[in-house]
């Protein structure tokens, strides 16, 4: 138990470090550049006309407050952090005066849901198929799956999403290619709504899974081909333990541990993919929000989304780390 506590403490420290460095990089980017974000934002926000002078003054105040362009460097830094700690990113400029936090809260569940399903699917399927491919080396079908995975794996999200869009949007239009649910539907706990959500999530999920699965597949396959030569696997085979049991409890179980670590390490990159996918399929999550915010020149929203993504990814990583000892008991002893 003491081992686990120490492990938890280390992971918590790493979590704090990630948040600290991530947020400070954000701070650095917004403050070390030669451009005055306040004036630039105001120009961008007022370019559409009809903004009252009072609104502009209020905007300027709130912006100066947010970016902390007044005061010394340290004061600015402190002000930046204070904003983040209390979760107040000010009002959105493109959807004035809705607070940024409200917009993010609205978008976050879509991204989180999409990510969760896509990650679990690609991780689970990739590991399962990769494990089988590593164990049953001579199976033709699994070999073929390996070649497909190898081919799709290096292609970035955008291209895969785009190809799916072309196929299912233009060549064979059977699936909805934009939005999170059919227009005109009332969000709620109805069967129709749920069905629509699932139908709309198919393509974005498919593109994420298609790209994600290859890496897990290949990683697991090579891990398994190493684990099958480990003494404990060879020994279990010698003892005549059933193949299925060896595959599950010996080979997969042991190969899975590094894959969980791998999952924690790639969560950030998977998140990148979600942003692109949402943009391509018009999915109303954080990614779409971020892109829209950039196009609308909505500074506070961009900072808000960036910060929340860093926090969300770090938290997801922490969660994976905390669950890891369930899979590998040795971690507590280290």
């Amino acid at each position: 138990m003491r081992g686990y506590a120490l492990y938890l403490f280390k992971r918590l420290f790493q979590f704090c470090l990630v948040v600290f460095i991530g947020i400070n990089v954000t701070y650095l980017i917004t403050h070390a550049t030669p451009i005055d974000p306040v004036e630039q934002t105001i120009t961008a926000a007022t370019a559409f006309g009809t903004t009252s002078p009072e609104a502009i003054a209020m905007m300027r105040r709130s912006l100066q407050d947010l970016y902390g362009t007044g005061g010394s460097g340290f004061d600015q830094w402190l002000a930046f952090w204070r904003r983040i700690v209390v979760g107040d990113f000010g009002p959105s400029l493109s959807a004035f005066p809705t607070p940024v936090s409200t917009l993010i809260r609205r978008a976050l569940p879509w991204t989180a849901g999409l990510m969760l399903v896509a990650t679990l699917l690609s991780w689970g399927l990739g590991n399962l198929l990769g494990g089988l491919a590593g164990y049953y080396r001579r199976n033709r079908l699994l070999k073929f799956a390996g070649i497909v995975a190898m081919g799709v794996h290096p292609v970035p999200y955008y291209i895969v999403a785009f190809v799916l869009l072309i196929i299912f949007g233009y060549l064979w239009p059977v699936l909805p290619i934009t939005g999170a649910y059919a227009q005109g539907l009332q969000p709620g706990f109805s069967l129709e709504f749920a069905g629509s959500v699932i139908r709309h999530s198919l393509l974005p999920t498919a593109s994420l899974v298609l790209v994600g699965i290859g890496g897990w597949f290949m990683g697991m396959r090579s891990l398994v081909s190493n684990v099958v030569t480990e003494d404990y696997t060879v020994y279990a085979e010698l003892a005549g333990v059933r193949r299925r049991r060896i595959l599950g409890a010996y080979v997969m179980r042991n190969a899975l541990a590094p894959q969980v670590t791998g999952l924690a390490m790639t969560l950030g990159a998977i998140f990148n993919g979600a942003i692109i996918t949402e943009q391509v399929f018009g999915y109303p999550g954080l990614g779409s929000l971020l892109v829209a915010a950039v196009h609308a020149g909505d500074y506070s929203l961009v900072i808000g989304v960036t910060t929340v993504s860093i926090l969300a990814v770090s938290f997801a990583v922490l969660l994976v780390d905390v669950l890891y000892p369930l899979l590998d008991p040795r971690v507590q002893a280290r």
Partner: protein
Amino acid sequence: MGPILAVEGLKAYYQMRYFGTLREVRAVDDITLEIQRDEIYGLAGESSSGKSTLIKTIARAIRPPLNVVDGAVRFDFAGQGPRDIYTLSAPELAATRWRHLSYIMQGSMNVLNPVRRIRHSFVDFAFRHMSLPMPAFLRRVEEHLGHLSLRPDVLESFPHELSGGMRQRVTIALATVCRPDFIIADEPTTALDVVVQKGVLEMIRRLQREMGSSVLFVTHDMAVHANLTDRLGIMYAGRLVEEAPTRALFRQPLHPYTAHLIRSLPRIGDDTPRHGLEGRPPNLASPPPGCRFHPRCPLAMEVCQQTTPVMQELAPGHRVACHAAAQGILP
């Protein structure tokens, strides 16, 4: 009843195709031996002499690129009649393993699944052979652990929580809990310190006596052989070069290589300098012609470079493959 194990003309080669050419490494080359019921048969030789490959082949625990090229491995477990282990179907093999034929593996430190409790290993390995309900099975396992001075709570431990000696005793318990007819032990004590090693050897001996099993015990350590085994086979470069009852072999080795192995043992009160053998074991991808030992042999003659010596029984139960010994020249 005949011998429990008869190996006949067994050849197992590593066959590799890389960059278009076939390479063969003759790790086990034409080996014939028999192991009787209720005896401990020792197998000795330097590392890379092929002794590990031989027992892997005997246990049918080989995978490509190692292939059996020729020969037979016949086991005769109680009343079943001799059968070549390579002709058994997969279910027959699974039914034989652990019930009749079990294995204590080299590097026993890593043979237990690191992510599962010891209890699961016992269930996986032995439960299906015991025809007992689970609670009774676990009681039997606990009792058996007691024979090896292990407390029942090791069942709930993970391997990394046990010391090296305890892990070794757990693997021995695992290999013997079904009271198998034949146990293959591959360097089971090599990684242990001397005190623990002694205890483990005594346990193996005691269990073997009590169960009446046969043990094929492999180690390069001649001192262990001297203390434990009933009969001893010496391997060199993939071949069996000498075989005799252990006492006879130590009293009068007939093969110069065996003599060298015995001479290199430390003895209390003996401080004559020990001479290493010149040269290295041959490359088994292209072994020397004739006797494989001749480049290093102090007794080498012309015939040794051309003709491979065959095993001859020179004394009752004492076989040797050496031209010099056949002519009565003793090392």
